Structures are given as structure tokens and as C-alpha cells.
């Protein structure tokens, strides 16, 4: 017997979406907890909770949202807050470029919608389908991974906004910020260039701790990127020069596969 469509979506498309959801399911708890931490941080900073929810639903990128809240709390000019957030989110350009050939057959509204839902995790999961020949399968799989992941992030934020004021200060929920980023960043670390990047960023953040408006984070990110990229370029040049016979170009890599949440 032929199965009926639900919500105008056929059974095959539901199955593709379900496969996408399963592929990202192990990361959903992290997304919810991180949303919760962001919501609590918004309340702790004394920011209008509706504005916090607006930020979560429009920016959809946790690290940059936290940077905005922290810089606003530090009294930074708006332009510094906005540029810091955009700098942190610049990595999406690489995901977007990597996904371009996989999504080129999708209708424009699908590409624009999926781009809005793009996170580190959903991009990496969508890229796993690069060998899948059917574009319909690819787009429903991508949606099945990306949409629930963002929904969980929004729900986590709402819970954090509601519970924020009743969470005792002694619990120091702010610790979720470094903890979450440690859990996302450290397991995926493999290349020396990444360590150089982190060391460069860390040095500037600490040396610039008296700078106003949270500028130490903004400048630290740029310094880390330059340090890591320069180190990698130097490494490649050295490798190519030392062993011309064995030197092979590395395949293009994406930013940290574990990534930000969302």
C-alpha cells in the first residue's frame, strides 16, 4: 500500500529528513544546553529577554551572541559588538563555499532557507552527503539535520531566559561558556597550526585584558588567525622545500569539525 504524504511532504522526503536528524542527534543535547546558558547569560547581563530571544532567532550562532552580550555588558560601542560577532561568524563563508556544489541544484528559496539554518554541526553533517547523487535526498537530509538543531537551540534559550533569574548566583552558570567551548574545540584539535592559533589568540586576550569594550577578544581572534595561518603557510613551504619528492598539497579543510553550537 502506498503511504500518504504528511503536511504535503511525501514519505520518501520524511525518511530523508529523519536520516538527517539521526545524523545530528548526538549533538542536540549540547545545542539545548548552550541555548540555556545563553538565555541565562542574557538575564544575568540585564538585557531585555525578548531582545535575547530575537538575537537567538536571527543571528543563530551562539559564540557570536555571547560575544555581543559580553561586549554590551563591557560598554563597548555598537560597532565593536557587531564587528566582533561578524568576525566570529566569518567561518560560515568556508562552509557556504564548501556546500555550494552540493546545493547548486536546489531551488533558490531552499538555498536561502538552509543558509539561515546553517551551523557548524549541520554544515558538517550536510557535507557527509557529498557523494549522494539525488539532490532531493540531499536537501531534505540537510533540512532534517539543520531545522531540529536550531529549534532545540531556540527552545534552550527560552528555558534559559525563564530560569535565568531563579538560578542561584552560587551555581556560577557562567562556567558553561568556557566548558562548552572546551568541549567543542579540544576533541577536534589535531594540527599544530591550530595550537599556534589558540596560543596567539590567548596571548593577545590576556595581554590586552585592560583594553576597553572587550577589544582584547576581537583583536585576539584576528591575531590568532594570522598566527595560525602564517604558521601553516611556513610549515607547507618548509615541507615543500625539504622534501620536494614527497610533498603533496593537503586537501581543503574546514574549520573545526566539532564547531560552534549552533
Amino acid at each position, binding site marked *: 500500500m502506498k503511504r500518504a504524504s504528511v503536511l504535503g511532504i511525501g514519505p520518501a522526503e520524511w525518511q530523508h529528513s529523519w536520516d538527517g536528524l539521526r545524523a545530528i542527534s548526538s549533538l542536540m543535547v549540547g545545542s539545548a544546553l548552550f541555548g540555556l546558558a545563553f538565555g541565562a547569560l542574557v538575564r544575568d547581563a540585564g538585557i531585555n529577554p525578548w531582545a535575547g530571544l530575537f538575537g537567538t532567532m536571527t543571528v543563530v550562532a551562539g559564540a557570536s551572541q555571547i560575544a555581543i552580550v559580553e561586549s554590551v555588558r563591557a560598554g563597548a560601542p555598537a560597532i565593536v559588538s557587531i564587528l566582533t560577532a561578524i568576525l566570529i561568524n566569518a567561518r560560515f563563508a568556508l562552509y557556504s563555499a564548501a556546500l*555550494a556544489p552540493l546545493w547548486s541544484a536546489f531551488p533558490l528559496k531552499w538555498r536561502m532557507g538552509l543558509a539561515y539554518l546553517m551551523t557548524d554541526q549541520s554544515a558538517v553533517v550536510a557535507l557527509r552527503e557529498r557523494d549522494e547523487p539525488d539532490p532531493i535526498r540531499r536537501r531534505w537530509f540537510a533540512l532534517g539535520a539543520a531545522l531540529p538543531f536550531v529549534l532545540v537551540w531556540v527552545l534552550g534559550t527560552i528555558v534559559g531566559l525563564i530560569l535565568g533569574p531563579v538560578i542561584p548566583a552560587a551555581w556560577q552558570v557562567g562556567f558553561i561558556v568556557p566548558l562548552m567551548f572546551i568541549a567543542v574545540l579540544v576533541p577536534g584539535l589535531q594540527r599544530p597550526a591550530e595550537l599556534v592559533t589558540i596560543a596567539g589568540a590567548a596571548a593577545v586576550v590576556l595581554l590586552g585584558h585592560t583594553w576597553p569594550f572587550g577589544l*582584547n577578544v576581537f583583536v*585576539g581572534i584576528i591575531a590568532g588567525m594570522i598566527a595560525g595561518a602564517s604558521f601553516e603557510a611556513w610549515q607547507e613551504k618548509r615541507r615543500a622545500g625539504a622534501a620536494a619528492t614527497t610533498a603533496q598539497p593537503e586537501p581543503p579543510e574546514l*574549520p573545526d569539525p*566539532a564547531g560552534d553550537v549552533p
Partner: protein
Amino acid sequence: MSIWLIFLFAAIGTYLIRISGVVLLKDEERIPAPVRRALRMVGPAAMGAIIVNSLFLDHQEWREFGAWHIAAAVAIGVALWRRSQGWSMLAGAVAFAALIAAGL
């Protein structure tokens, strides 16, 4: 500028970045190699900066050594050992709760 507008402009900028490849550029190879190389480092740079800033500083002052640093060290150790987000978060959270409960 109000926080609403800050979020709005950040959202617009972020969305333009997100559609840059899939709508506008359509080819990773068209991003110049040095830019591509730098973009690969954004993740570690941004996350590293935020970790260090929140762990060692508290409103521009040095954070007193204690539960934050020890629990973070536990989370990093477990992350390197198990190479797992979940185990790293769990170990860090349990260590932090225990240290806070112990009055550290």
C-alpha cells in the same frame, strides 16, 4: 544603539556570510588561498579567545584561581583522552559541581 539593532545588524552580516557561497559565489576555489587559510583558523581562534577570556578574566580583572580553572583542566584532559564532546562536558560539569559543593 539598542541591543535590538546590534543583534539585527549582526544577523544581517552573518546571513550574508552564510549565503556567500551557496547563493553568490558557488565555488570554494574562488576564495583566495590566504583567505581560505585564515578562515580555517577562525574556529580555534574565536573559541580559544572566548575560553581564555572567560576562564582567566572576570570583568577585566584576573579571576582568582579555583574551581573554574581546575574543572576546565579536567574537561580539557578528558577531551584529549576520549576525543568526545559529551564526555568532556560531563566531566567538566561534574568536577565543577563537586568543587563548588566543596566550597572552592
